């Protein structure tokens, strides 16, 4: 059994929050560069120019990439042979997030669902735990903004709808979202499982790198088909038209009930902020 001090987790999580909000991942920047070179419309290229300049300015000034610093979503892989000293793991993650959002001058966006009163410190952190073999603790932080999250959906399809139904639902969802979620977007798709697992899988899928090709060739083919199809919508960067509506589609499958075909579409804006640490 390995012991990790709570303080180590708090500090690591605070740093994750600040870094995720300030530094755009290299794969996203590379995708901007590729997409800009391929766009024929001047308006579309100008959007990429601004996004690249924005990323450079955030890095240089310490300002967050986007004013919407999101809800703090955490995927945590907890080794079965690791324990925390000095407090609980959920509490440590929450404390680290509160500190990171405070020290990093990040916007606090959690509020009461009805009174809309701001909680004030961005808490509570939304944490998903997975128990895994080993004595390590892997924490992935995602700063998920509201604009793209609002365009996401869960749908319980009938099994007979199959891949055709899945494909149509995903494409229509992106079409209906239009310019709202800050395209070019990344689309996470959870297929199978049940109501909540499909949703969690659609978000977990977004943690994969953009150029990562799925190990299962059939799933890889689904991802490639969805990406090409969505880009034929012509919504383009910021909805101004063009060939880059989507930078990547990531699918995560799970077995499901014989009566069900759960499907979740989690839309991620171009500011795909996530970062991980292994303790």
């Amino acid at each position, binding site marked *: 059994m390995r012991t990790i001090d709570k303080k180590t987790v708090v500090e690591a999580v605070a740093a994750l929050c600040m870094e995720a909000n300030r530094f755009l991942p290299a794969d996203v920047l590379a995708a901007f560069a590729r997409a800009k070179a391929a766009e024929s419309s*001047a*308006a579309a290229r100008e*959007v990429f120019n*601004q*996004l690249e*300049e*924005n990323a450079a*300015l*955030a890095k240089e*000034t*310490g*300002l*967050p*990439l*986007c*004013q*919407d*610093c999101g809800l703090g979503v955490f995927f945590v892989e907890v080794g079965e042979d690791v324990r925390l000293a000095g407090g609980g793991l959920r509490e440590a993650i929450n404390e680290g997030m509160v500190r990171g959002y405070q020290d990093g*001058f*990040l*916007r*606090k*966006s959690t509020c009461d669902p009805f009174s*809309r009163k*701001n909680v*004030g410190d961005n808490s509570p952190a939304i944490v998903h735990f997975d128990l895994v073999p080993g004595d390590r603790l892997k924490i992935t932080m995602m700063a998920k903004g*509201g*604009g793209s999250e*609002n365009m996401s959906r869960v749908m319980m399809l009938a099994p007979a709808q199959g891949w055709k139904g899945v*494909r*149509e639902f995903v*494409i*229509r969802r*992106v*079409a209906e979202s*239009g*310019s*709202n*979620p*800050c395209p070019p977007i990344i689309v996470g798709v959870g297929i199978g499982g049940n109501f909540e697992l499909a949703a969690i899988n659609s978000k977990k899928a977004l943690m994969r790198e953009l150029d990562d090709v799925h190990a299962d060739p059939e799933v890889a083919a689904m991802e490639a088909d969805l990406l090409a*199809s*969505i880009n*034929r*919508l*012509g*919504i*383009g960067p*910021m*909805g*101004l*038209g*063009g060939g880059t509506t989507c930078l990547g589609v990531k699918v995560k499958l799970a077995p499901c009930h014989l009566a069900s075909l759960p499907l979740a579409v989690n839309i991620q*804006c*171009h*500011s795909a902020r996530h970062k991980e640490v292994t303790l």
Partner: protein
Amino acid sequence: MAEHHLTTPLTDADVSKLRAGDVVYLTGVIYTGRDAAHKRIVDALDAGENPPFPLQGAVIYYVGPSPARPGRPIGSAGPTTSYRMDSYAPRLLKLGLKGMIGKGMRAAPVREAMETEMAVYFGATGGAGALLGLRIKDAKVIAYEDLGPEAVRELTVENFPVLVINDCVGGDLYAVPDLEAALG
């Protein structure tokens, strides 16, 4: 695709020359307001009270900035998605609001009100919060401080870059998704 440099407040003459696709650099005072602030402004109007800033010729920016770092007037300040303000916008347009800055599509009643009231919807680049925040030279909270990031602020901007999405003659810059091509 013309380029304009405009100073706020905007006049009918300013708005009438703008067309969807034009690039505009705004200088002067603009006001912030998003979901919760809009509700309070409309509640104030219902109660016969004055809005927190003069609506005549005003430009409202749908934004909830991140906190200012020491030495800066404001943090990151990119646009939020505008459709959430659609139910309030026609009323404000009737009272003289001339410009709205946000991102994403507007509902038909808002587009119609822009035509009848001579107003315009500007798009700013979503997510470019650092870049846009650095074009804001001064910021102060003027109403609803308790709303935090959603409070109403008076911003002084210089060459703030926006794009005309909806103009006052029915022009709409947003691409219509080609579902047929995508579903193929």
